[in-house]
């Protein structure tokens, strides 16, 4: 029973991180049809900026985290305008290549700036403390991750379902041509959605640094993981991404607890099996 609860708590925390990082990827892929392998790079940039603000400039954790996310968004918007806008029209393969190139550039830049060592983001005492849940003690950090993840889910839902921006975004995802014929500025919508995705990835990178440690090669190491979440969830489906992230988080955590030696293999094997049965993902639309 304790084991089950452990898996549940750790798995959900892990899944929330996966969701935060991957949801932007899912939205941009559903929206712009871009296979953006560089998406994990935004999580890296968020983590690197936060590390710089916290460790080098000596800011406390929360301001550093917020500034890290803001800096990543500030960088992603011109990047969308200058580079990504040209990538949209490419074939799958060219998109893959261009975004791999971008990933390499991001890794090399971080490497040049901060070196290739682990970029820690020092946690404040309040986050390092533990709370007693009855069956185990849990670092406050995990709880914050879970709460932040839940807040992101609710915030995204409200944004997409309850605001004018969300309405326009959904329209643009469904049919870009018709949307812009109705006077929606799809270019602007795309840029904002891209910045939102990059910001969420940065947030996930910063908050998840304890679970997925940040270093220059971060985007390459975890790229498959983020892509898996999107593929399993179904492109462009936020609910799908959430279900996939939590499910995969639980699955991998369970595998780590139960069959530690074969965790990665079991994880990938199950994912391949799932995708062989449901190539469009859990909630993907048939293309």
């Amino acid at each position, binding site marked *: 029973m304790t084991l089950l609860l452990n898996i549940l708590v750790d798995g959900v925390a892990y899944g929330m991180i996966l969701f935060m990082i991957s949801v932007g990827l899912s939205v941009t892929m559903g929206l712009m049809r871009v296979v953006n392998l560089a998406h994990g790079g935004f999580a890296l940039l968020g983590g690197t900026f936060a590390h710089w603000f916290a460790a080098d400039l000596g800011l406390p954790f929360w301001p550093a985290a917020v500034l890290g996310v803001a800096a990543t968004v500030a960088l992603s918007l011109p990047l969308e305008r200058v580079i990504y806008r040209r990538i949209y029209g490419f074939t799958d393969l060219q998109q893959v*290549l261009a975004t791999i190139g971008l990933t390499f550039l991001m*890794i*090399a830049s971080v490497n040049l700036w901060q070196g290739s060592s682990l970029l820690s983001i020092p946690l404040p005492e309040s986050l390092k403390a533990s709370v007693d849940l009855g069956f185990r003690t849990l670092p406050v950090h995990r709880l914050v991750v879970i709460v932040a993840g839940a807040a992101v889910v609710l915030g995204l839902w409200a944004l997409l379902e309850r605001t004018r921006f969300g309405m326009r975004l959904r329209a643009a995802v469904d049919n870009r041509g018709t949307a812009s014929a109705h006077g929606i500025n799809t270019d602007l919508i795309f840029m904002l959605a891209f910045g939102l995705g990059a910001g969420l990835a940065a947030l996930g990178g910063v908050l998840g640094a304890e679970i997925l440690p940040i270093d220059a090669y971060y985007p390459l190491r975890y790229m*498959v993981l983020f892509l898996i979440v999107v593929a399993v969830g179904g492109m462009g489906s936020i609910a799908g991404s959430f279900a996939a992230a939590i499910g995969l988080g639980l699955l991998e955590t369970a595998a780590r607890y139960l069959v530690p030696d074969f965790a990665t293999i079991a994880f990938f094997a199950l994912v391949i099996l799932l*995708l*062989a049965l449901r*190539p469009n993902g859990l909630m993907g639309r048939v293309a």
Partner: protein
Amino acid sequence: MKSWLPPLALLALAVVLYFALPYNLAFLTRILIMAVLVLSLDLVLGYAGIATLGQAAFYGAGAYAAGLFAIHAWADPLAGLVVAGVAGAALAFISGLVVLRTHGLTLIMLTIAVASICHEIANKARDVTGGADGLRGIRMEPVLGLFEFDFVGQTGFWYALAVLAAVFTFLTLLTRAPFGLSLRGIHESPERMAAIGTSVYWRRVAAYTIGGAIAGIAGALSAQVTQLVSLESFSFTLSAEALIMLILGGTGRLYGAVLGTLIFMWVHHWAAANDPFNWLFVIGALVLAVVFFLPRGIIAVPTALKRLGGRNAGS
């Protein structure tokens, strides 16, 4: 016969380089081996149109198969090539049955996942593969019983060049045969090929399997020549670099694959020698430049220049 000119020119270039750079034979051999890998990718991607980022899975499978075969069974190089080819083909066939049922992003992702599983297995099965330390102690017998692998790497160079030439010839014949033409048709319009009664799925599986065999042979070459197999053989970076080399040279033309390998490896070598910490920056910039300015690869440069007419456009 005109179509044989580019490959013959490349062959001549290889011989010239052998005599011009006698102290860089290891690097030149590395280029030849990568060219075999990129050729296998050209068949899978350039001809059959299967976008994959997991070609390293078959390269690694071949490398480990050849290494283990040489250590435990028989150290004959050519037998090792056959074993590695079979290992690569078997893995490609089995994984292809699943992977090729999907499309687009899911397919790309699954190919990465297959390579990741192989990487993990090789990492975990430390007793067999040496884990992160790599597979050591490969001692090869002379090629054909005549040519001993020497310290300078002369035998390795000619051996790799011979295998590259054989693979190139095989692929040239294959892509001109009805099978190769049907692959081209599938690439351009799977619906039409299905409508005229071609089994698109099985043709793709076949192309994927042959590509896997050739990638396995490339891996075997690397294992035999360097006498070491490391986990790097399964790495994503290797798959990505092979893809970059192919696109750089231009897909759908075999000599484009070889040319792309040559240029990429040279840039890689130069960048790594000048600034070992940031060669990745140069590679990233190179990739972006190719995708944005030369989407059809280097082999399209002459036509592109012709089309630009009087305007003076560099590459």
